[in-house]
């Protein structure tokens, strides 16, 4: 009896393949837009037009792949879109040398962190400024991982997919980067 139950639980449930529909894509993607926007802003720094282009290109490619049956709407879709967005950014950067990495700009992150009012926000803004300054000083490979996992809340597997590196490498880079950032933040806030 028990073995029958186990067999029936492990049997593959046939999936009904639905025709891709624009409405389904739009409904699925709308809640993901804040994350895609945040990631595009992170890549493009203060260049909001570039951020828009990157996000738009990722969505176009996502939609075309979905309609062609090559992209499923799942919890991996956001990392798929982020990978396209990142590749698009790298390609644009190669084509146009005027597009610089945000860390090379004056102010770095500051450019795309929104301004706030009030004392609490002023304190948060100071901390963010320090954090951004510290982040800009990291080696690129560590900064990328922090941007994805800490600043954009991608999980380790998603970050590994986006960067094309093993999950173990994501973990080790993240550990080194977080400890460096923690130290910088700590000593900037509490000078020795």
């Amino acid at each position: 009896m028990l073995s029958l139950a186990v067999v029936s639980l492990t049997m593959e449930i046939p999936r009904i393949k639905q025709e891709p529909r624009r409405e389904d894509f739009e409904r699925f993607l709308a809640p993901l837009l804040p994350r895609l926007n945040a990631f595009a802003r992170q890549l493009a720094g203060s260049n909001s037009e570039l951020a828009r282009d990157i996000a738009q290109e990722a969505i176009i490619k996502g939609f075309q792949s979905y309609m062609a049956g090559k992209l499923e709407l799942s919890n991996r879709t956001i990392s798929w879109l982020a990978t396209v967005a990142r590749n698009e950014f790298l390609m644009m950067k190669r084509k146009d040398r005027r597009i610089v990495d945000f860390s090379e700009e004056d102010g770095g992150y500051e450019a795309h962190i929104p301004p706030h009012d009030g004392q609490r926000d002023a304190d948060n803004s100071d901390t963010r400024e320090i954090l951004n300054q510290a982040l800009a000083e990291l080696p690129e490979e560590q900064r990328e991982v922090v941007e994805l996992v800490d600043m954009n809340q991608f999980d380790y597997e998603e970050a590994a997919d986006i960067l094309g590196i093993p999950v173990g490498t994501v973990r080790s880079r993240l550990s080194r980067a977080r400890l460096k950032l923690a130290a910088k933040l700590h000593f900037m806030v509490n000078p020795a």
Partner: protein
Amino acid sequence: MTNTEPKLRPCPHVISSIEKIAEGSDSNGLFMKYVRKHVEKCSHCAEALEALECYQAAVREAYSETIRNGEKPFGEQDLSNLLDSLSNPAQ
């Protein structure tokens, strides 16, 4: 990077536990329990752990602020318009 940069200096036998915590793989909290016990008597490790926790709080705050208040280069209306144009290229 300069040599004069201040550094966190956790005890050598605690470094790997702190690295595991920083890595985020301490899902059952064993390393954290060990470090918490140790930091009761060690100010260097207490400082390292405190720095890591402050960092984690700062990035959480930065992320939620960005999602809440950040510019939206591509909004829902933009999405709708874009999909319209892709679905009906003649328009």
